[in-house]
């Protein structure tokens, strides 16, 4: 990528946008993991799959809330979708604007996450108006189709936030193609960690910790690869110092540190503890939880470093 000099001003996207980027990654990642566990996992993975779907919807609902609060005119949030100006009336769909695509993607993903959430509740035996209809309609192949479509949308929601930053003229953000893939890999890794953290709250979900740990190791490897691409492209563009200079190097150190345990397979899944192993089991759980927290902290640190370092 050629060297570029920037004369732009920062958009001042700070805490709400950070929260949105975080939740979008977790929601999309949780939904994908739920689908993979459901379609490719073993029967004992189904509790973890259901937990993933139950987590995905609340996380998704919070996304537009944060986005709306961050707007200068929150009551006009719907202008993202409906053209009320000189070119209207009509729907807004600016295909070159990731923010425009993201709004539609988030809405469509929200529909899938809601349908699957209702399906999980209904098949769990929770009764609500229309629950029998939902079980009938989504309990079979149609529900699986919703899962696949929702996973594709979830991957988009988790990754497009990085593209949104790149499609700008801001230093750092616009000097690399790697942010989309990096945010996606980080979101998936964080979602896996969140599932491991919350698994004890749903009976049987811990049985999938070994698989989730394996997946998280792979996601961490993917994140590491995109980090290398990020630093390489930024070095070529002459923006590396700005990104990793003081004080941001502390955050990048946390990011790298958070990748080590998943890469080393330290998300333990060895829950088959021998006789008298209750204490060992507890230690194992604490270790897994601590690793999961570290992964989530790394996920936050990476986004803070990317958002703040570019905006000065």
């Amino acid at each position, binding site marked *: 990528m050629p060297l570029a000099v920037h004369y732009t001003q920062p958009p001042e996207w700070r805490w709400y946008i950070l929260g949105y980027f975080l939740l979008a990654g977790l929601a999309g990642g949780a939904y994908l993991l739920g689908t993979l566990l459901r379609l490719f996992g073993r029967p004992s993975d189904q509790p973890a799959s259901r937990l993933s779907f139950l987590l995905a919807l609340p996380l998704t609902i919070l996304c537009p809330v944060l986005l709306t609060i961050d707007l200068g005119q929150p009551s006009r949030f719907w*202008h993202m979708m409906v053209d009320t100006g000189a070119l209207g009336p009509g729907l*807004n769909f600016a295909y070159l604007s990731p923010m425009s695509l993201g709004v539609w993607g988030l809405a469509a993903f929200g529909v899938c996450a809601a349908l699957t959430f209702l399906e999980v509740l209904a098949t769990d035996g929770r009764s609500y108006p229309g629950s029998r209809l939902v079980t009938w309609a989504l309990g079979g192949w149609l529900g699986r189709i919703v899962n696949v479509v929702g996973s594709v949308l979830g*991957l988009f929601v988790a990754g497009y936030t990085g593209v949104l930053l790149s*499609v700008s003229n801001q230093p750092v953000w*616009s000097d690399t193609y790697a942010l989309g893939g990096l945010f996606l890999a980080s979101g998936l890794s964080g979602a896996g960690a969140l599932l491991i953290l919350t698994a004890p709250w749903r009976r049987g979900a811990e049985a999938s910790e070994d*698989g989730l740990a394996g997946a998280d190791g792979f996601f961490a490897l993917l994140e590491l690869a995109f980090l290398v691409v990020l630093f390489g492209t930024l070095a070529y563009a002459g923006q590396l110092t700005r990104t990793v200079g003081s004080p941001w190097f502390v955050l990048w150190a946390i990011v790298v540190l958070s990748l080590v345990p998943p890469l080393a397979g330290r998300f333990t899944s060895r829950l088959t503890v021998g006789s008298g192993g209750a204490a060992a089991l507890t230690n194992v759980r604490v270790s897994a939880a601590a690793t999961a927290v570290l992964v989530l902290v790394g996920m936050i640190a990476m986004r803070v470093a990317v958002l703040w370092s570019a905006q000065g």
Partner: protein
Amino acid sequence: MAEAKGFFTDTSVCIGCKACEVACKEWNELQGDPPAFLADSFDNTGKLDAANWRHVKFIENDAHLTASTTVGDGQAWLMMSDVCKHCQQASCAQVCPTNAIVRTEFDTVFIQQDVCNGCRNCISACPFGVIGFSEQTGTARKCTLCYDRLQNQMTPACAKVCPTQSIQFGNLSDLQSAADRRLAQLRQLGYSNAQLYGRDDTVYGGLNSFFLLMDKPAVYGLPTGESARLPSRNDVGGYLGVLIASALAVIGGIVALRRRREPAAPAPQPEPEPEPAATTAGGGDR
């Protein structure tokens, strides 16, 4: 559609009086920013933003301060009244998700204030740092090229008050001809660095607000070449990264989660002690 309008700002005759800044604020009812000492030559405006739609830059060009420099040769101390460029290929309009940024019948770039919802995506995209966010209105704001005055066949306020005709307003084609003549005149006088910026389509397809500069664009803080590119250049590459990451993540996830050996059932305990729920890996769902 009316004929394309624009500004031709001839920096060679700018005297830094800031009348343009004042007239702009007065007509557009902009409060400006609180006065501040910026320790930057005679500049106390700082930058273009939501409250400053014209900004006179004072550039003390040390590189030209030599023994041979004569007072008033237009190179040692550069002045330039900066403004929105009203780009033919506008980065701000390209990323705006609400279609609030449109081209008017005068071929200028205009932010519809009743449509903008203050997402600030245009601020991140504008390569000139022109657009600012107004806390007062909750929207993105910038020069409108006095759209209301144009609709009433009036000259924009800044051009109207410029005492040296540094800011010229008119039909774009007429301005381009005038700029060509002025450049030729300056070159004849020996100003070899004089150049037009945004007159042709090399910068964002051409600028409706273009400049005659006395030095390289970078000296004035203006992007050229690889620095003057549209945000959409990163669309394909960015989404390709997401696509690659998605494919690899799905493959990795399937490999990690595909039917693994079921965990062994817990061995029967000699004494029926209540086990922690977590040890019943593979147990039934709630």
